[in-house]
């Protein structure tokens, strides 16, 4: 029997990925978390970062921002609030957005500063996935 996980990546408006994988890594709320065949049942919150799904020598990359992951009976389900495939991300565009944000003047209030930092963090995470 193949030691594979049935994996699906879902967002509210579509199914992004469905297939069997050998090894899956997701960005949980506090760091990366890996799944292999026969993982114990688990539900975890996701953070902002990349998902790597490895099948043989092939790997698929996704960007995920928030959501949940559930694994049970070798079914791995990633419920993302916001997710993109690597092919959908354009590194050049993301880079220009990052430079635009970093070169702009820092806003006055701390709330705005936090918002910008958060945005920057998300863009950088996207860029990381895009340049894989």
């Amino acid at each position, binding site marked *: 029997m193949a030691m594979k996980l049935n994996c*699906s990546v*879902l*967002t*509210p*408006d*579509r*199914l992004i990925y469905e297939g069997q994988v050998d090894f899956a890594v997701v960005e*949980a*709320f*506090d760091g990366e*978390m890996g799944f292999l065949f026969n993982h*114990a*049942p*688990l*539900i*975890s*919150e996701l953070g902002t970062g990349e998902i790597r799904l490895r099948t043989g020598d092939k790997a698929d990359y996704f960007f995920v921002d928030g*959501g*949940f992951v*559930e694994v*049970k009976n070798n079914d791995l*389900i990633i*419920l993302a*609030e*916001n997710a993109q495939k690597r092919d959908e991300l354009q590194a050049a565009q993301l880079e220009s957005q990052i430079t635009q944000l970093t070169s702009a003047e820092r806003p006055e209030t701390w709330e705005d500063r936090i918002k910008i930092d958060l945005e920057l963090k998300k863009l950088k995470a996207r860029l990381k996935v895009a340049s894989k």
Partner: protein
Amino acid sequence: MATQRDIKKRIQSVKSTQKITRTMEMVSTSKMKKMQNRLSRSMPYNNKLNKIIENLRQTGVEDVFDPLLQERPNPSRILVLLVAGNRGLCGGYNTNVIDKALEIKNQLTIEEGKEVLLYVIGKKANSYLKFVGETMYKYSDNMEDDFTFSDAADLGNELINLFVTGEVDEVYISYTHIISKATQAAKTERLLPLKPETGNIEETAEEFNVEYIFEPNPYKIFSSLLPLYVKMKIYLSILESAFSEQFARRVAMKNATDAATEMIRDLTVSYNRVRQAKITTEITEIVGGAAALE
């Protein structure tokens, strides 16, 4: 009596109207299919979300103190989110949902003496409420085809904020619910405080025996799942309404096209009758004239 030319003009105008209604019917059909696709694409996510929530409830997190689950004693300010369309020509679609929302509003204000705020989506609802002199808390256009989950998320966050800060004590949503592919009905549901659907426990009892590991812990996960649940509910409600609108428009336009066909038939009959009458009169005149000459 209408002359030949009058009737001919009439037929022409009915024909051109029929062309328009037929086209609108086709447009609605294709939009309806699109909405249905979007709905079915969202269903797996929704089902999974509900399942996780159910699993969590089995671990006893239900007693947790989460602001979104807290029933408030004597709710005094209530927000009703009304989802209607931007356009007419869709039969009773807009009126039904507006009536439903106003019905609950009247029930709450008159019978229970509460303050009800209306959050309105859709141009048609806006103009109707203005016409009857209802005050609106907020109004926005229906985004129709451009509506995405992130719009629903923004709306959800706004409503959750209003609820959590104590601005309003309860939130209702009035939308058009899809009962089956062929039947839709206006419906009002309470959105906040939340009451997640309880599934059939016996049926799924086996699954619940699974001991999950929760990261960070069930309570934290439950609390972050709830806002997502609210957003998903709003998203689906608006999609269902959009589907129902297209469905209603399709039916209305089909009826209009059929009525036009019927009308053209009737008009053609009377056109022929007038034409025949004219010919008969002419012949009688000629025959009469010839007889007079002899």
